């Protein structure tokens, strides 16, 4: 199969007062795809065009090999959509709501009920699924929103800011769930977020948009490949500034050293570098808090592009 999951060419969307997308051409394959950009970068507009709901001013887009302009209904049977905003009626239960939405995707009544039970379990809703949604926490609501996007077993789901409003634990759970949808469920995911940090943890591929234009599109490994740097953090011990003495000692041992706030960054020369760091810490009487191989962070892409 050579047809990419999503392919856009010169995609442009102008609203009366604002240009949301400006000649966006991008092509991505199956997997978990991150769509990153600041608020107003055109993420939601792009998703709506890819769903065939919004007509582009110019350019074309194909999703799962289907032209969004001409095969909208056919396409929408194969995809799921979790909007950014709240979209749940408070006075029905998660089960009733999801069954109805499954039927709205064309599932016969019995299949809709079965798939609803399965899907709610997969997103982590158990006994509470029979209670009215109005009493749910934000985390549970997000799970119901995700369930209605998954219930018809789509080939691709669009998630618009799925971690919005979640606390750190809820955020981690949601991200783990999204990752699992991509790997275990075999459903491709396009997840939009303005938070780069969370996407680099779960995505195979990241597309960065800014002001409606493509900033960069590549495999996550290209952003976050391992570097040859070790981050070292030490306690002060008996010294006034533990990091400073540590940096001096390591530099004295012939290593390339660089300070980064409380951290000391050491370029790895060979396997012996780890031993040298351990010995230096022992000799100075400082505690070794952290010894970690550094990765590139997606943020650096923005820093590079901005420069």
């Amino acid at each position, binding site marked *: 199969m050579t047809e990419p999951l999503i392919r856009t060419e010169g995609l442009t969307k102008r609203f009366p007062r604002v240009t949301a997308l400006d000649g966006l051409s991008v092509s991505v394959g199956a997997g978990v795809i991150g769509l990153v950009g600041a608020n107003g970068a055109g993420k939601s507009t792009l998703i*709506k065009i890819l769903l065939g*709901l919004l007509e582009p001013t110019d350019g074309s887009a194909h999703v799962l090999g289907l032209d969004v302009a001409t095969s909208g209904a056919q396409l*929408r049977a194969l995809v799921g959509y979790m909007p950014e905003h709240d*979209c749940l*009626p408070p006075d029905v239960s998660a089960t009733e709501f999801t069954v109805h939405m499954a039927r709205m995707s064309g599932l016969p009544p019995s299949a809709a009920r079965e798939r609803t039970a399965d899907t709610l379990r*997969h997103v982590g809703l158990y006994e509470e699924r029979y209670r009215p949604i109005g009493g749910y926490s934000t985390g549970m609501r997000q799970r119901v929103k995700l369930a209605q996007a998954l219930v018809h077993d789509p080939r691709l789901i669009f998630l618009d800011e799925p971690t919005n409003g979640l606390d750190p634990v809820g955020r981690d759970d949601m991200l783990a769930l999204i990752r699992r949808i991509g790997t275990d469920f075999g459903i491709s995911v396009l997840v939009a977020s303005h938070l780069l940090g969370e996407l680099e943890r779960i995505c195979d591929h990241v597309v960065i948009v800014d002001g409606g234009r493509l900033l960069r599109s590549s495999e996550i490994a290209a952003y976050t490949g391992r570097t040859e740097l070790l981050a070292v953090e030490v306690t002060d011990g008996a010294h006034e500034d533990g990091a400073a003495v540590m940096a001096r000692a390591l530099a004295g041992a012939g290593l390339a050293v660089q300070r980064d706030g409380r951290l000391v960054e050491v370029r790895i020369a060979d396997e012996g570098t780890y031993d040298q760091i351990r010995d230096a810490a022992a000799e100075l009487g400082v505690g070794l808090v952290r010894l970690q191989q550094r990765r590139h962070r997606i943020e650096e892409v923005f820093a590079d592009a901005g420069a």
Partner: protein
Amino acid sequence: MPAPEPRTGVTGVIHDIGYRNYDGARLGRWYLVRSLFAQSLRGAYGLGRPARSRVMPLLLLAAMLFPALIMVVVTVISGGDLEIDYTEYVPITFYISSIFVAAQAPQLVSRDLRFRTVPLYFSRPMGYADYVLAKYAAMTAALLILLGAPLLVLYGGALLADLPFWANTRGVLKGLTGAALFSVVLAGIGLAIASVTPRRGFGVAAIITIILVSYTLASTVEGIALSEDKPTVALYAELFTPYNLVNSLQLWLFQVRENPTFDELPVPHGWQGLIFVAVAAATVAASAGFLLLRYRKASAR
């Protein structure tokens, strides 16, 4: 139990709780419209919702049935004829059914707007026209149940009282036809107004106001016109309020010569009836057109 098939390509998944793909039937547009129709019709009577949503529609249904039951009891005991024509029942009870339109039309459309569920429908194979069709049909059906049920009670009572079978069958069929006309026109007006606002309360107030104010205005104009001896003006004043519009239309359709409810009021005859047909049709078309525009906009949001 058959041995599980060895899975390939899955490496070290501990938390695999077995996601199953769905490869069963995916039904087409008509199934979606039917499902949404059924869900909305049930919703109009509060079914599938908390008990308190059923109170209002069921009270109103009871209020609609009550006069019919009384009439049936009187007819059976007295052995006389039914008190009224079948076609008269809906206009006489219009206070009850107009509350139903005001209360339940927003129930059908405002909820999806207010809770922003609309985008979930339009990110599915359903188009906005399908959505409008299902909602319009559901509201019409809900009204037809409300307006038709008492007519069937009257008919049942008439048969119990051994009233002439054919005359009553013809009568109830006319009544049901009229009820269907009322339902289509009222559903359109109710839904179009309700779809403007996501606030249910505003929708309720707007619908009841428009029905009652237009009725009061039309009645006032009629009263003045009749006292000034201008029956034609009085006749056309009926066009501007939904119940009188449809009532005149059904009287013309069934060639009733005299307005049974208000005998001074003229009834359209001959080509005059076509004006009533045209205005009723235009009301339905305008309501449907407005809803289509409204949801075409909502689908691209």
